[in-house]
Each structure stands twice: as structure tokens, then as C-alpha cells.
């Protein structure tokens, strides 16, 4: 079974880091080329939102992949992927507060409370903050058992984020993309239930 040594792990992490920055690099590049469509702001908002969801999916892939393949070292990549999810969520949120409300916090707050699709999107973002804040080794150690409990919030974040995406597309019945992302997320969440069920069954025996 493939298990990278320390140096290989470092290289894999570095490669992943660069790879994870490509969506941002693409936006910057398209921006310089004047190719962010006639509505660059909408383009950036959509793109950062899409990539938040994609990184959420990738992050949630780690555990099932590790279980199925036995590659325990995959766990070492999870934190970085989770933080990139947060990074693209921050970018997405920034476009909302900057371009949609031009830093008018009161107007933003009204929008958050009034529109359910924004309420759930905003909640998902807020719930990501404690997860990012407790991602350091020191925090993992300090929180111990509670760390695992806390980080189960990611399942709730996934559901809220998906709801946000679905609702956003609902008015125009344009569900092709939400169906794909939603199915993947559902599969990933169900896999947790399956693992949990199996563990319970085997420990009861």
C-alpha cells in the first residue's frame, strides 16, 4: 500500500496547494484579459460560490476515500482542503458585501434576514468560521474529543450551502448543476451514515 514518507507528503501538499489556487488564478487571468463577461461581478460571485461547493465536496471525499482505500495519509490533506473551502467561501461572501451592498452592513443584514436563500448561505458561512479557527494543531489538542463533535458541523454546512445553491437556481428552474453537486454531496453524507451504521453493528457484536 502506498504511504508517502515525510518528504513525499510535503511535495503532495505543495502540489495540492498550487492546484487549489488555480480557480483564483483563473479569475485573475480572465480579469486581465477582460474576459469576465459583460458582468464581471456576477461572474466572480458565481465562480467563487461554485468553487466553495466543489472544495466542500472534495474535503468530504477524504474520509470515505481513506476508509475504502486504506490510505490513511489522505487525512493529512483534509485540513488544507477544508481551509480552501473557507477561503473560497470568504471570497464569495466578500463579493456579496462589497459588490451587492458596497459595505453597507445594515443593508446587508436586512438582506440576510429577509431572503431565505441568503439566510441559509450566510449561516453556512458563519458556521465555517469556528471550524477554520479551530483547525490548528494546538486547537485540535486542546479541544480533544470536543473537536470531533464541533467539526461535525461541516455536515450542516454542506446541507445549508446546498440549499442556498438550490434556492438560488429555483426561480429559473435551472437545476442541472445543483442536481449534480447535490447528488455528490448526498452520496458523501450517506456514506457517513453507512460507516456509522457498520461501526455500531460491529461494536454491538
Amino acid at each position: 500500500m502506498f504511504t508517502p514518507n515525510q518528504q513525499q507528503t510535503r511535495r503532495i501538499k505543495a502540489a495540492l496547494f498550487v492546484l487549489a489556487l488555480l480557480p483564483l488564478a483563473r479569475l485573475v487571468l480572465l480579469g486581465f484579459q477582460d474576459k469576465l463577461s459583460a458582468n464581471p461581478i456576477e461572474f466572480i460571485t458565481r465562480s467563487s460560490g461554485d468553487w466553495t461547493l466543489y472544495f466542500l465536496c472534495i474535503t468530504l471525499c477524504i474520509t470515505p476515500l481513506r476508509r475504502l482505500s486504506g490510505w490513511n495519509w489522505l487525512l493529512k490533506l483534509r485540513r488544507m482542503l477544508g481551509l480552501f473551502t473557507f477561503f473560497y467561501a470568504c471570497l464569495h461572501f466578500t463579493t456579496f458585501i462589497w459588490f451587492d451592498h458596497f459595505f453597507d452592513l445594515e443593508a446587508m443584514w436586512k438582506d440576510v434576514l429577509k431572503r431565505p436563500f441568503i439566510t441559509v448561505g450566510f449561516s453556512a458561512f458563519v458556521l465555517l468560521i469556528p471550524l477554520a479557527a479551530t483547525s490548528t494543531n494546538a486547537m485540535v489538542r486542546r479541544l480533544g474529543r470536543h473537536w470531533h463533535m464541533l467539526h461535525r458541523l461541516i455536515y450542516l454546512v454542506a446541507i445549508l450551502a446546498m440549499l442556498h445553491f438550490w434556492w438560488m437556481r429555483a426561480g429559473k428552474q435551472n437545476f442541472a448543476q445543483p442536481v449534480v453537486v447535490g447528488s455528490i454531496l448526498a452520496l458523501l453524507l450517506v456514506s457517513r451514515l453507512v460507516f456509522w451504521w457498520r461501526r455500531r453493528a460491529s461494536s454491538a457484536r
Partner: protein
Amino acid sequence: MLIKRARFTEPLPSEITPRALFESRREFMQQLAVGSIAASAMLDSALAQNTAPRSKLAARANPAYFAKDKPTAFADATSYNNFYEFGTDKGDPMLYAGSMKTQPWTVRIDGEVKKPMTLDIDSLLKVAPLEERLYRLRCVEGWSMAIPWVGYSLAELIRKVEPTGNAKFVEFTSLADPKQMPGVGSRVLDWPYVEGLRIDEANHPLALLCVGMYGQTLLNQNGAPVRVVLPWKYGFKSAKSIVRIRFTETQPHTAWNKSAPSEYGFYSNVNPEVDHPRWSQAAERRIGEDGFFAKKRKTLMFNGYPEVAALYTGMDLKKFF
């Protein structure tokens, strides 16, 4: 201590950027950045289609309907479109509308009229003298443009077919041919695209029967060869590539209204006070002008066309949104 102040001095001739080089900055920037080559090649060929020669239309600018706004760049108005018959992405119409055949084309006009008729484009062009009008276009999604359209008041065409006393509404049907329009296979809307107006709205001189833009015939992605333009309503009310105009006694079942009645009303007048359920309609972003460092501009009642207000006296516009 002597303080030296920098003063403006004439630049050396060698310091001045040659005009041609300065003006080619965009191309230079584009050449600098490589990557996403396939996508940009596709975009470039589509842009080339945009700049392909179309026929010029002789039209006189009508000062009464010429907004003070700065016209939106032609490239923006022809690359950022909602025309779901060609796909749901804003760039899809530009990429795929080339497959639509607009010659020959006829429009069937029937229903509650004394003189039903089928007109081809040449006859449609001759119904009334062509005018150029610069209209604001406000999309229900919260962005806007200002476009110089070419056409004449829809009322001129309506007069020609002589509606009967039963004609209370006008229904517009767009072409829906899955062979020419890749998006018609999707289930996003119930095809064909149908839009409609009350007859008095249709007879308002602002309602434009449109055959061109920017001094030339319409591009396919903008609804060639014939469409309507209703500047006081959200953009989706202005049906594109029309094949049939029917006069009816009952309110037409319009496409977006059927699809999501709580979000898209039959009237859909631009109204900053009636929010879309998922976003505010109080402000809008003008494409090409309101960029990263500008606040969105305020949306005006009836998109800044108060002359239509009389059509709705006594109506609760929050209810009939």
C-alpha cells in the same frame, strides 16, 4: 534648506508612447496572458460572428424616445443575453444563436382582428418609417443596459390589422424549433416562449416593434429578425424572434408566469418597491459602467418612463406585479 518642487516638464519625444501602441494595449494584455485557450478561441470566433456585416437600416433618431444614458457597448449588448432557447448561460446565445435561420421569416398575425395576415420581414419593415430609440433595458436579475433599437411603435402594426372589440390582450409567440435552438430541448420553460400585454399597453407609443439595433439589423442572440421592446417592463417581457402575434379576449398564459407565478407577474413593470422574492429590485448595475468601485444605481419606477403610469391608475401594483 532649499526645497525643490517637482514641476511638470515637457516629456522627451522618446518618452511618449506611440498612439498605435497605446491603443493596442488590450491586445497586448491578451497576448501576455496565455491559458484557457480553447475557451477564448471559441469566444473570439463568436465575437467575429458579431462583427460580421449585417444590413444597415435607414432610421431617423426619435428625440422623444432617446434616453440621456450612455449607450451600452455593442460587444456587451451582444454577448451577455438571456435567450433560453439557446441555453441558460448568458454567453450561450452568442455562441449558439448562429444556427437560427432568419431568412425567410414570416409573422402570423391573427386572433381577434378584422384583417388577419401573414407578413414577411420586408413587409414588416414597410409598415411605418423606422426610428432609432435609445431605451434603458432593466433585467429582472438586477442589471441594466441602454440600447439604441431600431423599429416603430407597435401601435402602427396593430392599427393595420384592425383589432375587434373583443381584443383585450396581445400574445407574442417566439420561434421554438429544437433543430435550430439547442435550448428548446430543456425543461427549463414550457416552450414555445409566450409573452403578452394588455391591448392598451401594446398600443402605448413606447412599445416598440423592433427590427434592429445599433443602426443595423438585429443579431440572432438579440432576437432577430423581429422582436418587441418594452422599456418600462423587465426585459423578459420583450419577446424575441417572434413568429406569431395573436389578439385575445383573455389574458395570455405567459412563459415565466406559468413557470414561477410568485416570482414573475403578468405585468412585471419595473418597480423598485416590489422586490423579487430572492433579491431587492431597488438598485441595479449598469453593464459596462457600474464596476467594482461603484455602488449600484437606484432603479426608477417604470424604469424611468413615468408616461406609462396612466395605464395603471387605480391598480395596486404590489398585487399586480
